[in-house]
């Protein structure tokens, strides 16, 4: 009897493995099918019009926003971010840089986004703007300026944060993203410690999530990773989130961006 049970359990495990594999294939197939009509494009269109619409107390557009390639240059800007900006004296990712532009050009306080809620108000505006900017780096190579000492410092900080265990479950980012072949439910998790995995992750966020019809920026993605670890959620565009992005982007250096991505 006991032996029979053991065999049944083994059979179940084998079937489970096969099922997980075929489900991953099915998801890949599904993704391929709808990649043609990625609804992220709708956010991109909205972002483009927001970029050119005078807003905020100063009634200004973002067309003079300097994303590192000069004022108003959007093309290829995201492929070189996060980067060091001399005017703010900080290494900034796309979202934190957009915050700077909104504040300085339009007079919209950063707190409108930082203290806001996901998918609402100015944070939603941020989603659309990010969709617009990243689309203009699609197909380009990730090229971070790793010679810059400030970027190097953020890389080291990000690496430390990646392996730093905290919270009631004593998780770190590396618990889930430090080995090949891990998954949460049916979602395969990229191994962010090597180039291939980092390209898969950094190169496909921000993304449209089909399951909830939402567009998520990397800030949102990172925040949710912390929430899933049941640990303290980082502040929007805080130093640790930018540092983790630098670590990821640096590991993915040279890979091709597929942004905006499409997720389950």
């Amino acid at each position, binding site marked *: 009897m006991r032996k029979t049970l053991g065999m049944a359990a083994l059979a179940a495990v084998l079937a489970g493995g096969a099922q997980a594999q075929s489900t991953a294939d099915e998801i890949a197939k599904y993704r391929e099918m709808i990649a*043609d009509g990625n*609804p992220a494009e709708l956010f991109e269109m909205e972002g483009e019009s927001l970029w050119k619409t005078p807003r905020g107390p100063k009634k200004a557009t973002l067309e003079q926003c300097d994303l590192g390639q000069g004022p108003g240059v959007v093309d290829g800007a995201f492929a070189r971010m996060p980067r060091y900006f001399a005017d703010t004296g900080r290494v900034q990712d796309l979202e934190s840089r957009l915050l700077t532009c909104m504040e300085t050009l339009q007079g919209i306080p950063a707190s409108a986004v930082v203290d806001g809620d996901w998918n609402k108000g100015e944070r939603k505006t941020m989603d659309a703007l990010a969709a617009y900017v990243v689309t203009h780096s699609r197909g380009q190579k990730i090229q971070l300026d790793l010679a810059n000492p400030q970027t190097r410092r953020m890389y080291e900080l990000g690496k430390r944060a990646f392996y730093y265990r905290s919270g009631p479950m004593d998780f770190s980012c590396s618990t889930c993203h430090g080995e090949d072949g891990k998954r949460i439910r049916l979602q395969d998790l990229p191994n962010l410690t090597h180039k291939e995995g980092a390209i898969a992750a950094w190169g496909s966020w921000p993304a449209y999530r089909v399951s909830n019809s939402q567009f998520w920026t990397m800030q949102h993605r990172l925040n949710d990773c912390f929430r899933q670890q049941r640990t303290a959620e980082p502040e929007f565009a805080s130093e640790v989130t930018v540092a983790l992005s630098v670590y990821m982007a640096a590991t993915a250096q040279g890979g091709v961006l597929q942004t905006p991505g499409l997720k389950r």
Partner: protein
Amino acid sequence: MANPMRIRAAVKDGFTEVRVLMSHVMETGQRKDSSGALVPAHFITELTAKHNDKVVLLAQFGPSVSTNPYLSFKFQGGAKGDKIVVSWVDNKGDSRSDEALIA
């Protein structure tokens, strides 16, 4: 006013393929919000696609169609530069019409 659609149309071997991405919440009327109140149904009911002035596709949509629907179809004929007009009406009487030229 609803957000614009993205329409792309291309002719190949005598057939025109039209791809439409619509921006719509497509609420089923079955979901509840955080306070437990029913979210009212809000979905596209009818979609019309025209090639120049001729209707080439008439579709009835329902609440089972996803948020931000994507529709792709082919019809025989069409030439480069012809106009494709896609319009929809939803159950609240809201509507949207966008056009594109065949590439």
